[in-house]
């Protein structure tokens, strides 16, 4: 078959297609610019996640925009700490809200240039191990031979393995499956799993027909807390310490609001995670939020020149990663202490109103 010459109709058709493509390209070229973005100002880039914390209050109330009028403030939502680590490696963010396990990964093996500058929350009753009714599981040791779901690489995964170790159960005796919260709830309803270590809001759903075996609050009491941390890149700490101070102040202000006016804090969090105020208040009530005095005590961040026990918690998370064969070795505790930003503590939190 020889190729026929394109007839007039075909040529007209081709022309129409080309024209349509050209219009589409032109349309996508004029992207919508972000509101309030001023190309003449430097930009501060924040990575946030949607776990309930003061970070969401700061974002919702636009406190950082207020405190730093000479900067563009850019908030980007991330779904996991691993993604935030990647963004830090790529030098695309300056601040991040991230769990202690990914921070341990970032500091121990990826050598990400960031420092721990804030404790957003300590996992409490908002992360727990629940056994399904009818499985006969009463305590952690009963999990032997059962099927337990958790999201791998998460703080819940870390807490589950810690709970097993404290109960003298070898993790290989338990069938641990990797399921994200929403999938674990589906598997739970289908009775495919016997227990689940997860967080809110899925946690409240499984509590309805299950028994709580252990929570992260109890594990924190046993010296194995899991934390959500605020980290700042070394670059911004060195080049713009005043921005870091402003950021720490608004975070402290949000912590104070959670304690002094839980309703207002819940309203802000609810607006950010797309739930109602009552639900957000319940979620906030189950987490542990430090007071400024606690935050700057030796038990947590510590004070200038004397980094606190947060280093211990991250070091322990690094040990968890080593046990999972995700890092070759655990750096000494001193390395983690050195990664805690205590400059100006506790004075920087004076007069935060």
């Amino acid at each position: 078959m020889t190729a026929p010459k394109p007839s007039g109709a075909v040529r007209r058709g081709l022309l129409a297609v080309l024209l349509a493509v050209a219009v589409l390209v032109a349309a996508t070229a004029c992207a919508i610019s972000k509101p309030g973005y001023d190309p003449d100002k430097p930009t501060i880039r924040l990575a946030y996640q949607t776990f309930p914390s003061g970070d969401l209050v700061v974002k919702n109330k636009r406190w950082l925009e207020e405190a730093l009028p000479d900067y563009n403030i850019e908030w980007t939502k991330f779904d996991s700490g691993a993604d935030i680590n990647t963004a830090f490696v790529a030098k695309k963010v300056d601040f991040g809200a991230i769990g202690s396990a990914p921070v341990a990964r970032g500091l121990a093996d990826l050598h990400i240039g960031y420092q721990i500058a804030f404790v957003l929350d300590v996992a409490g009753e908002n992360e727990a191990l629940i056994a399904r009714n009818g499985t006969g599981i009463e305590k952690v040791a009963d999990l032997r031979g059962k099927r337990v779901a958790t999201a791998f690489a998460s703080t819940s995964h870390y807490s589950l393995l810690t709970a097993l170790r404290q109960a003298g159960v070898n993790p290989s005796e338990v069938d641990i499956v990797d399921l994200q919260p929403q999938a674990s709830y589906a598997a739970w309803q289908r009775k495919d799993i016997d227990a689940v270590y997860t967080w809110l809001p899925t946690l409240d759903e499984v509590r309805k027909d299950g028994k709580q075996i252990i929570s992260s609050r109890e594990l924190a009491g046993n010296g194995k807390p899991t934390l959500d941390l605020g980290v700042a890149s070394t670059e911004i700490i060195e080049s713009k310490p005043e921005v870091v101070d402003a950021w720490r102040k608004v975070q402290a202000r949000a912590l104070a609001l959670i304690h002094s006016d839980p309703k207002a804090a819940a309203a802000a969090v609810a607006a950010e995670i797309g739930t109602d105020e009552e639900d957000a208040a319940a979620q906030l009530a189950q987490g542990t939020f430090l007071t400024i005095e606690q935050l700057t005590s030796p038990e947590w961040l510590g004070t200038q020149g004397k980094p606190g026990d947060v280093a211990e918690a991250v070091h322990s998370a690094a040990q968890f990663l080593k046990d999972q064969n995700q890092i070759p070795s655990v750096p000494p505790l001193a390395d983690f202490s050195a990664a805690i930003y205590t400059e100006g503590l506790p004075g920087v939190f004076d007069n935060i109103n």
Partner: protein
Amino acid sequence: MTSISSASAGVFAEAPAEPDIGTGRGDRTPLWRRVATGVGLPLASVLVFLGLWQLAAVSGIWTETFVPPLGKVWQAFIDTSTTHDGVRGYGGYLLWEHLYMTLRRVFFGVLIGIGAGVAIGVAMGTVPWLRRLVEPWLTFLRALPPLAYFFLLVIWLGIDESPKITLLALSALPPAAVATTAAVAATPKALTEAAVALGGSRRQVLADVVVPSALPETFTGIRLAVGLAYSSVVAAELFNGIPGIGGVVKDASNYNNTPVVLVGIVAIGLSGLVIDGLLRLAERRLVPWRGKV
């Protein structure tokens, strides 16, 4: 014995006729040139790629998380393939066990998907009203990224093998069905009319004229279907995916463990190449009349 040797002789005799190797008549090209272009060129491209990679890794422009040096990737390959320091492979399974589980899922998924797809395609190609009835559904399914509906499969089918195999079957079905429909519908009218004029029944026409004429294009559809299913393995193993090579890639990326991610990607890619090669071989053996009718 004789059948085997004749079979291999057949393959050998046909190999030069393969259009994408030949630069002119295969049997006239000197052997060294055929070896050079058939083996040397792909090998050279791999070596150049590895060289550039290593250069990028040691240049220090990107951190190790982005471009890990080849030594680290190789170490990850060794670690995932062996038992070391009392640790068995990755997540308690060796690399080949992960790959085996994935291939098993792909095999069953693709078998179901292609079986159903070809059957639907033949029916649609021969019965016009059926085609109008089913085609919108197929197009709908084809437009869906597997990730969009995988969560529903978990709710309906659980977290074990069935949702994974169903996902792979669903991603393999539409390309197989669409290609078969087109192939069957494109059977030259002259051939079917001639067969009918010679007194062939509907069934005879289908078996002796339509199917042989449609097979070459159907095979292309099957290769596409396998490729599409294979590219969905990471999605299929998103939940409870270990053992499974897609599960390994997903899990390692959760830990920012780039070397293991790369090992998984290479394993998926290489096994995909092998599978496609086997399919091409099967195509040549089963449909020797491709391009000659």
